[in-house]
């Protein structure tokens, strides 16, 4: 009796071992996939920063703000905050690029937030199921438009329209770019914000209705506040994407590296700057490293924004699981 039991147990253990081995193997394979993607990100980080710091071999950190340059016209030294990489005295100030990036990304985020949150509220709270079923794939389709196509439409049509309406000095300017970028980041913002609102339990809506709230009172008083962390995560993530968007801004913003706060001025963003210049620069030069430095700064920005939004989303998921 005992022996029999032992025997069967032995056998059981053997068959189990086989299973356990294949499971072990698959588990390790997946682990490797996970580790390698993290590793790749770490390597990109490392490579980018390794190249970027080389800039300081020949230049000082003050050069990132501006340079004193002798001005032939005014016949005295003037302080120039310019990005002028091809010049007798090359200037690598990041200030005009910051101006450009933020002057595009801020308005783009605001436009996309208003449209995106509105659309998310409609989809999650108001749309009849049939309309929702039509709209959801349409939004996914929008996400699939290549950014070069959006850029082209902005460049060819919207720019003219905006110049006619606002009588702007530059046909291609930050605002035109912002409109295009808003379009590009809209789908992801809608998706995240809508998910957040749909995750609000039905019980909370019922509680609100049972107290005599109307649909709108329930949306503003219960659903949106309960989903606020998810909605802010959507906005932050959208902002990160807007900062990183390249093709649309390259095509639609005019690419003049100006220090300006005027939304209708031509600007050059960090991304467009890299895209436009990196192809024609000699490796190992100061200019080359300067571009890497811009890339490192940009990466730091977008990485931080993504990180923050991921933390917020995780917290929200934990809170709602309760």
């Amino acid at each position: 009796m005992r022996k029999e039991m032992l025997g069967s147990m032995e056998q059981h253990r053997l068959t189990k071992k086989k299973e356990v081995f294949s499971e072990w193997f698959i588990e390790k394979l997946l682990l490797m996939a996970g580790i390698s993607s993290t590793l790749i990100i770490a390597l990109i980080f490392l490579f980018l920063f390794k190249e970027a710091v080389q800039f300081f071999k020949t230049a000082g950190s003050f050069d990132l703000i501006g340079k004193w340059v002798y001005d032939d016209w005014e016949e005295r030294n003037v302080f120039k905050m310019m990005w002028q990489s091809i010049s007798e005295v090359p200037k690598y100030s990041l200030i005009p690029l910051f101006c450009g990036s933020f002057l595009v990304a801020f308005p783009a985020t605001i436009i996309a937030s208003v449209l995106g949150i509105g659309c998310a509220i409609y989809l999650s709270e108001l749309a009849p199921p049939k309309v929702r079923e039509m709209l959801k794939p349409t939004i996914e389709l929008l996400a699939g438009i290549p950014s070069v196509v959006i850029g082209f439409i902005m460049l060819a049509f919207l720019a003219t329209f905006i110049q006619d309406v606002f009588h702007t000095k530059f046909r291609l300017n930050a605002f035109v770019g912002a409109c295009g970028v808003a379009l590009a980041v809209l789908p992801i913002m809608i998706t995240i914000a809508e998910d957040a609102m749909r995750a609000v339990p039905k019980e909370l809506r019922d509680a609100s209705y049972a107290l005599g709230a109307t649909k709108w009172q329930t949306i503003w008083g219960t659903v949106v506040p309960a989903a606020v962390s998810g909605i802010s995560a959507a906005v932050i993530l959208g902002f990160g994407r807007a900062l990183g968007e390249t093709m649309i801004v390259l095509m639609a913003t005019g690419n003049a590296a100006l220090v300006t706060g005027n939304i209708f001025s031509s600007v050059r963003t960090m991304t467009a700057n890299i895209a436009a210049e990196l192809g024609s620069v000699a490796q190992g030069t100061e200019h080359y490293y300067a571009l890497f430095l811009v890339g490192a700064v940009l990466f730091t920005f977008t990485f931080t924004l993504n990180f923050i939004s991921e933390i917020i989303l995780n917290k929200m998921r934990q809170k709602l699981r309760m």
Partner: protein
Amino acid sequence: MEIKILNSGKTLRVNQDQDLSSNTTKILVRDLEMFYGPVRALHGIDMEIKEKAVTALIGPSGCGKSTFLRTLNRMNDTIPGARIHGTVLIDDVNIYSPEVNVAVLRRMVGMVFQKQNPFPKSIFDNIAYGPRLHGVIDKAVLEHIVEESLKKAALWNEVKDRLQTGALELSGGQQQRLCIARVLAVNPEIILMDEPASALDPLSTAKIEELIYELRKNYTIVIVTHNMQQAARVSDFTAYFYMGSLVEFGLTKDVFTNPLKKETEDYITGRFG
């Protein structure tokens, strides 16, 4: 008063210390039918619910207790495909007539749910939610309402020093009393409760039952319960539902000691259900 139920050997304390015959009718239900799409969930219900009394709805799971309860404050309106025939008169007004303002109706007929559902807001904001909806913005008035409601719900002493903390930090039982306070804050006349204690421990359940007993002096209460003892303890009237029909309805003491129908007797004595 202790009553031995029929031949089951169980004894129950039945609520019987008040003459209810003089109470006026608060809710009058006539020939009520309710459909979820093509499926009929309620069949020709007639019921007369007395003012300032507790009416318990009992019956096996899925028999339509919650559905019936939700017809009384039109919460079924929020369910797609739900339809209704027949009349529900509250104070002689048909609540399904087109002139009725549903927001006002729901304020008058409050509801407490099976699973406690406080908003993820502070204790104060939970109670103030209803009054704010209906236009109260004065801080002093709101503070007064919050205090009064919490006192009526027997929660004030436990939370008075932390009104600004999150409602979700309270225990389950406290959260349910908070939900009751939230309903009281809009000054209802009728309170509907759908198995309000089914997710709570015995001690919290006892507190809720005590509270119901107190509230009954000023409010008309309709409570769904799974628990026979609870129905016997807290209610004045009992309605037994089975498969969408009202099988028996009467004074709790009569339904529990001397039911008219065999099915009721079987259910109450636990022979079925």
